[in-house]
């Protein structure tokens, strides 16, 4: 009952502190985001670094709202799957033509062109060609290839190619351009495939603008045998904007990364800080209560640990162990308890001489009992602020480690996203949506705890109270 009353008193003080309430408000929001992450951003977080998981997303495109802010309408992601088939014969061999039309009426180029073709045949082998028929009746061969079979009777092949920056496709487009008297090296485009959609007349005037009209992606395949068939033909045209926070260069949905980074950051911060406070409290109180020579020795250890360079040692540990998130929390804890130990010790030194501890000792309470029942509960209020302030410290340190590429590689931590932004040249290519949100998220979560810690500190340490 006494404890509940203390809590109530504390809350009555706390609720008058605007900054504390602000921190608490932010905390409620980030805890909600953490809990609702599977609903807001459905994803298996352990597949974050699995590039195949994101392969069909447009790569490195801005958020949709940013597009609308500029007064432009983004091209949506286009999945073309309804193909038409035409079977003929050419000099006795079976030939198949598969058509995938698209009415392209956008003012911008697709950011990605990917196709997947499932080709089956009966015979020794097959030859295939992928080309595009343009609205101006020009034909551009994009890709050719052959499929063979070992048993000379039945064969199949899956042609799945990201043509956006594919060297073969680039060479083919270059050949087509030189056939119309242009040089691919003199044309400025984000990706070579976009030239296939460019208006030729304007291209000759050095303007790269899409040609509107009907394009037909076509596969033509001839079997050296009896039979040929295409069981799947799909073309994906990449959107120019994606979701709430765009994508990174591997097509990862950055909104999902940001959302899933929240519970991870909270876990790291809270667990590290709680463990650190618990260890520091026990250590400091023991040291202070025992006193004398062992107190001196224990405090020297704290001094030395406090002077250790945190980040370099964490770098060494992380390289040697390639840690999981749990090991990182353990490493961070090693550096996170000394401050509390010092404070706890100095309070324990005062409490040791106080009347109620003297009384407890007089009636024969054991040392362990005095520490656990009489001293620690009286120090706990002082550690609440340190607990709150330890959380941003842990979050920032983990982010630094992940930024160096030494975090848990399987998880979408904010630091890891910033590491990928740094190595992926996000700044140089102006992809602000890649590096601004994760850093802001780190700051906002840290802020919540800093504000709460500040407010709590003012309440429990009245001598520190400032106007």
């Amino acid at each position, binding site marked *: 009952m006494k404890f509940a009353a203390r809590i109530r008193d504390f809350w009555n003080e706390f609720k008058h502190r605007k900054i504390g309430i602000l921190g608490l408000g932010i905390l409620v929001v980030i805890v909600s985001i953490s809990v609702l992450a599977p609903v807001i951003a459905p994803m298996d977080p352990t597949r974050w670094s699995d590039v195949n998981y994101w392969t069909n997303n447009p790569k490195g495109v801005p958020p949709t709202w940013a597009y609308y802010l500029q007064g432009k309408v983004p091209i949506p992601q286009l999945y073309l799957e309804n193909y038409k088939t035409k079977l003929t014969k050419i000099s006795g061999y079976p030939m198949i033509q598969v058509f995938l039309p698209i009415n392209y009426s956008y003012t911008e180029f697709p950011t990605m062109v990917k196709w997947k073709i499932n080709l089956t045949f009966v015979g020794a082998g097959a030859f295939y060609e992928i080309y595009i028929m343009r609205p101006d009746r020009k034909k551009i061969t994009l890709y050719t290839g052959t499929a063979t079979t070992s048993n000379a009777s039945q064969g199949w092949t899956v042609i799945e190619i990201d043509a956006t920056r594919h060297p073969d496709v680039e060479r083919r487009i270059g050949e087509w351009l030189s056939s119309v008297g242009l040089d691919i090296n003199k044309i400025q485009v984000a990706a070579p495939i976009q030239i296939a959609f460019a208006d030729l007349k304007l291209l000759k005037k050095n303007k790269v603008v899409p040609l509107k009209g009907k394009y037909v992606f076509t596969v033509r395949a001839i079997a050296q045998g009896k039979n040929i068939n295409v069981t799947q033909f799909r073309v994906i045209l990449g959107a120019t904007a994606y979701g709430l926070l765009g994508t990174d260069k591997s097509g990862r949905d950055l909104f999902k990364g940001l959302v899933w980074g929240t519970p991870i950051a909270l876990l790291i911060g809270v667990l590290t800080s709680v463990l650190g406070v618990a260890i520091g409290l026990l250590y400091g109180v023991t040291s202070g209560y025992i006193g004398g020579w062992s107190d001196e020795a224990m405090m020297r250890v704290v001094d030395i640990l406090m002077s250790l*360079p945190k980040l370099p040692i964490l*770098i060494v540990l992380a*390289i040697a162990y390639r840690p999981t998130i749990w090991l990182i929390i353990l490493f961070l804890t090693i550096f996170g308890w000394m401050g509390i130990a*010092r404070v706890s010790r100095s309070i324990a030194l005062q409490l040791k001489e106080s009347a109620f501890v003297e009384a407890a000792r007089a009636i024969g309470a054991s040392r362990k009992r005095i520490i656990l029942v009489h001293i620690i509960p009286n120090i706990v209020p002082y550690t609440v602020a340190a607990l709150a302030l330890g959380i941003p410290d842990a979050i*920032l340190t983990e982010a630094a480690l992940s*930024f160096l590429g030494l975090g848990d590689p399987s998880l979408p931590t904010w630091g890891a996203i910033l590491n990928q932004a740094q190595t992926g040249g996000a700044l*140089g290519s102006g992809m602000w949506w890649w590096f601004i949100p994760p*850093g802001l998220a780190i700051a906002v979560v840290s802020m919540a705890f*800093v504000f709460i810690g500040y407010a709590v500190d003012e309440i429990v340490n009245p001598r520190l109270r*400032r106007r």
Partner: protein
Amino acid sequence: MASGLGRYLALRAVNSVIVIIAVVLLTLIMFGPLVDQQLKAQIEMEVRQQILKGGAFGKYKTPEEAKRAMQKAIEERIKALGLDKPWYIRIWGDLWRTLTFDLGTSWVIKSDSGSSKVVNILLERIPRTVLLFGTSTIILLVLQLLLGAKAAATPGSLFDRVVVLSGLLGYAFATWWVGMVLLYLFAYLIPIFPAGGMVSVPPPQEPLRYALDLAWHMFLPVLTILIVALGGWAYVTRNLMIGILTEDYITTSRAKGVPERKVIYYHALKMAAPPILTQVTLAIASIFTGGLLTEIVFSWPGMGLLYWDAILSLDIPVIMGDVYFTTILIVLANLTADLLYGIVDPRIRLGAGGATL
């Protein structure tokens, strides 16, 4: 009194030596197996090349014979280098070599002058980091004293609130991320500052132009460190000053008619100096590590960028050397602060000296 300072400094120095030895031992234990592995692989490759020189089995008749000779040569080399002894025996030799700056050769990274000696690589990097970090620290110290004192003079004012808030915000932002944002804004979006590096390529020949070019490249990284750290430092000074401004002798000075400016910036600041220095000691390591990561963002070719390069290429000897020198620099910075502390506060005694939290 002099003996008190001497004892205090001696204890701090012992502490520093223990810290350095502990860090080196830790890196040696952690990286020992990796280094051994690499060393053995290198020996094997060299021996193989030597034995198989000329002909399929070299001068040996059968492959078995060549193999046996190779095995023997490898074992001899390993023995000569002492690699056959257990790590807990070898580590003391390694410790001594590291402490005496014999840091071996790098695996991948070379110094600008083309040397593979880890010491040479670091000797190139250290002045650059010291330049960036030293400049930031000096500006930081001066500005925080002025801002902190001014805030303390008018507690509760708008200025004071801004100082408190920016102090709190400083704890929440990652320095290197603020660097990324500034770099994006002022080197890419509005290109008025360089996108990275320490000097232009090629660097200007004339000394004055060189200095200006250097300052131009340093502006954003220093600004980054200031933005994040200044609030926190000023906040600490402000709190200490507010405590001191309520003391009786300050009231006395004011009553005597000492001008308010002099009361705050001379009498009170002088009293606040020792605890401020304590806080500085605690903060130096944190802004140093923040600075190392900021170097990466701004491609400032110092010790921080060296960590990045060495981690990317997994150049263990370079990482070990970098950790060693980072530790030395942090320890030296702390010792300097301790020395200053001892000078400004002659009452110093260990234990009673440090402010807690």
